[in-house]
Each structure stands twice: as structure tokens, then as C-alpha cells.
């Protein structure tokens, strides 16, 4: 009896310690974001940012566009079979565009971004930490938060919204290919129904806000995991996995919250 009680107490202590650790890590991550995101942009910083834009943006373009195309095509195909039962296949354009703009493009692009660019950022910064590059930079008198982290952070902030736009455009075009070219929905009604129902501010704008939020969260997680990891090869591989898992969960969870606020009438 006594020992059972003791065991329970230990469990509670352990839970408490886990909670404290988690809060501490969150605090560290917050300070980290604050310290690295604020910096005076210099010519050198611009050049570094450009390099990272290439790395996280341009190199992620292919996977994002191809996925967007397929998702648009699938949406049109699935939507058509449902809408045709109601004689409403004219609304296909509306359905494809709204699903993409409000939901699928921000979320799927963010998930792909976490897998493609996020994990690479974690691994890269982690490797720099493990090989003492960050320490030696500090010893040279250069702040690695400014030099290494900040350009990556800002590149991520800018790149993901652009990728999301690309995803939407290609997806809508994919829906057009399947719906109009293949299934024979009237081209005029594909576009006009879309235009009548899509609002630039409410649909495109809110989708962009979502993707901006996701960009901040995913890049932040990726860069922080890289900076904060245990500098061994095992630590790097664990941190890379954590980046993908945490950012996927964060994206999906935040998506619900944002959707509730934006479209749920809260």
C-alpha cells in the first residue's frame, strides 16, 4: 500500500518535471525566435537570405507544384462524381477553388515544406553545431543567430506563402484539366462559378494568412530543433524526425483553430 502510494507520487513528480522541461524549452524557443528574427538587414544579410531562399524555396518548388497538380485533379474527379448526382457539376470550379484556397493549399504545402525544407534545415544547422561551426563562429565574434539562423528563418517566412500560391494555381489548373478537358464540364461555368463565389479578401486572403502562420511555425520549429539538438549523429537524426512530427501536428492543430476563427463565425 505504502509503496503503491510512493510509486504514484514518483509518477506525479515525473509528470511535473516533464511539464517544467516542456515549458522551459518553449521559453527557450521563444527567446530564440525573438533574438534571431530581429536583426538589422545588411547587404551581407540580404545575400545570405537569397541563398536560403534558393535552398528552401526554389528547391521545394518541384515537389509542391507536382503535388498541387495531382490534388487539384483528384479534387475535380471526386467532386464531379458527387456534384453530378445533384445536377450541380457547374459548381465544380467553385468547389475546387474554395477547397484549395481555404484549406488544402496552405495545409498540404506546409506539410510538404516541413518534410522537404524543414528537415533539411534542422539537419544542416544540427551538423553545423555538431562540427563546432556555430561555436567557432561565436569565437570569431559573429553571432550565429544573426548569421546562420536569421536568414533561414526569414527565407522560410517568405518562401512558404509563395509555394502555397503556386500550389493553388497549379491545383486549380489541374482541376480545370480534369473537369473541363476530360469530364466535359462547360468551361465558362467552371470559371464563372468560381469567380462568383471566391472572394479575394475572404478566401485568397485568409488562405495566405494561414500559410504565413504555418510558415512561421514550421520554420521556427525546424531551425530551433537544429539549434537546440544534442550534437551527435543520433541527436541530429532524432531532431530531424521531431521537426517533421512537431511541425505537422502544429500545422494541423493550428489549421483547425484558424479555420474556426476565419470561417466558423467565431
Amino acid at each position, binding site marked *: 500500500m505504502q509503496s503503491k502510494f510512493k510509486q504514484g507520487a514518483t509518477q506525479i513528480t515525473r509528470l511535473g518535471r516533464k511539464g517544467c522541461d516542456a515549458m522551459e524549452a518553449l521559453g527557450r524557443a521563444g527567446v530564440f525566435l525573438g533574438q534571431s528574427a530581429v536583426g538589422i538587414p545588411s547587404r551581407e544579410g540580404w545575400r545570405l537570405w537569397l541563398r536560403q531562399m534558393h535552398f528552401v524555396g526554389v528547391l521545394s518548388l518541384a515537389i509542391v507544384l507536382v503535388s498541387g497538380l495531382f490534388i487539384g485533379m483528384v479534387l475535380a474527379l471526386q467532386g464531379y462524381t458527387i456534384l453530378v448526382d445533384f445536377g450541380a457539376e457547374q459548381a465544380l470550379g467553385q468547389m475546387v477553388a474554395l477547397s484549395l484556397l481555404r484549406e488544402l493549399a496552405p495545409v498540404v504545402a506546409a506539410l510538404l515544406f516541413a518534410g522537404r525544407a524543414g528537415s533539411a534545415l534542422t539537419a544542416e544547422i544540427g551538423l553545423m553545431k555538431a*562540427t563546432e561551426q556555430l561555436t567557432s563562429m*561565436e569565437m570569431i565574434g559573429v553571432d550565429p543567430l544573426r548569421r546562420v539562423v536569421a536568414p533561414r528563418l526569414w527565407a522560410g517566412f517568405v518562401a512558404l506563402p509563395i509555394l502555397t500560391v503556386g500550389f493553388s494555381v497549379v491545383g486549380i489548373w489541374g482541376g480545370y484539366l480534369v473537369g473541363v478537358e476530360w469530364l466535359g464540364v462547360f468551361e465558362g461555368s467552371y470559371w464563372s462559378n468560381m469567380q462568383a463565389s471566391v472572394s479575394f479578401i475572404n478566401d485568397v486572403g485568409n488562405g495566405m494568412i494561414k500559410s504565413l502562420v504555418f510558415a512561421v511555425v514550421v520554420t521556427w520549429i525546424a531551425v530551433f530543433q537544429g539549434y537546440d539538438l544534442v550534437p551527435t549523429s543520433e541527436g541530429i537524426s532524432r531532431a530531424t524526425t521531431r521537426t517533421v512530427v512537431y511541425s505537422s501536428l502544429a500545422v494541423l492543430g493550428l489549421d483547425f483553430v484558424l479555420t474556426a476563427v476565419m470561417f466558423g463565425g467565431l
Partner: protein
Amino acid sequence: MKVNQPMTDVPFIEIEDLYFSRGEHDIFRGVNMTIPQGKVTAIMGPSGTGKTTLLKLIGGQLTPDRGRVLIDGQEVHSLSRKALFALRKRMGMLFQSGALFSDLDVFENVAFPLRVHTDLPDAMIRDLVLLKLQAVGLRGARKLTPAELSGGMARRVALARAVALDPELILYDEPFVGQDPISMGVLVQLIKRLNQALQLTSVVVSHDIKETLSIADYLYLIADGQVVAHGTPQTLDTNQDPRVSQFVHGEPDGPVPFHYPAESFYRDILGHA
């Protein structure tokens, strides 16, 4: 001989009553050291005694639990971030792994400190970098990336980078570890020559006895979180303290036991019967 009385030299680094622990594990318990200006001072000790940690404490990357570190009269751990970075411009550090920036080539690695801390025109940076690379014998390798260098070459490039800003102090973290005899010889010679040519204060952390003894003017031996002996190479060689003589002469068993603590072998084998 002047070399035999380092305490009369001007101290450049003073470490006073330094305590540091990592988690439950005490690493330093009251370390006192004086490192004279313009000399090569070696800090030696068995693996795991926190020699690298000591360098990080000197460089201000770690903060001690107690005690203080003075560099040229400035207390490292009470400096503002900006002042600390300014102080670091006056020191160079050679890391165990070289720690070259993997996204820059050899030339840009050496040019890095110059580009960040000076406004020199490109042509002058080029001349300076080639001068430093020439000094370590790698002027021809300037276009290579760090991945294409051997371990010894990487360390020499890192050395060129560490002295790029002509620092007053240079910290060497295990410069001889994992080097073949040739590159070891090259590094020993380079450290000696740089120290003489640039009037540097050098701190070498190492456990390679022979090489370190050949370049050091003064030695500190640390074990169990404290300085157990210090003196010139000659005095340490004849020191009677068993901890010192075990380390200096490389005896396999002694105060640092060969066996990891365990219950008696006899009982471990037969005890479960």
C-alpha cells in the same frame, strides 16, 4: 633562464577559484591558473577532465558557477554581449575538428573573420588571406572545399583562420589528436613559429605528452577538477606525485585506475552460484 620563471611575466589570463558543474557532475572545484603573456602554456590532463570545458569558460561560452576569469584585466563573464564579442576579436581558437564552415571554400573560410570585422577592400583581404595560407603551407589549396581536405589540412586552414585577425591570444583545443606523425610535426612547428613570430599568448589543451612538452613554456596538469601540478616541462618530468608521474610517463595503472569501478572479479564470476 627566463623561461623558468613564468610567474614573473605579465599575466594575460587569470583564473581565480573556478567552480563549474554540469548537472550533478562537478567538473571544476576551485581551479586557479595564471597564463603569462607571450608564452605557450599547456593545460594537460587525462581525458574527461574538462580541458575543453576550461577553454570554453575562457572564451566566455560557458559561465562558471563560482570564481572568475580575467583576460587582460577584463572579467569575461560580467561583460555585455557586445563587449564579449569585441574581446573575442582579440582571440583565436583552434577547434578539435577544425570547425571550418562547410558552405565556404578554404579561401573564404580564412577571409571570413576579415570580412566580418574589417572594411578592408577585396584586394587587401586577398593579400592577407594568401599570406596566412602561405604561412600554413596551403596557399595552393585555396579553392578546395572543407570536405576535400584531410584532417591535418583542415586543422591548418583552421589555424590560418584563427590568426587571420592577428589575435593576441590563441586557444588550441587538442591540436594533435588523431594526426599522423607528419601532420603532427607540421602542427608542432606551426604553433611554435606562430607564437614566436606574432608574440602570441598561446594556450594548448592536450594530452599528447611528447608534442606538448616540446612546445610548452609552462604546464598545468589538471585532474579531479583541480590543478594537481604546474611548472616547467623539466620540473614536471621529475615530479614525484604519483598522479603526475603516471600521466607524464604514461603508466597504464596507477591513481587513474585501469579498471572501471566494479565489485571484485572473483565474486562477479562465482558470486551467483
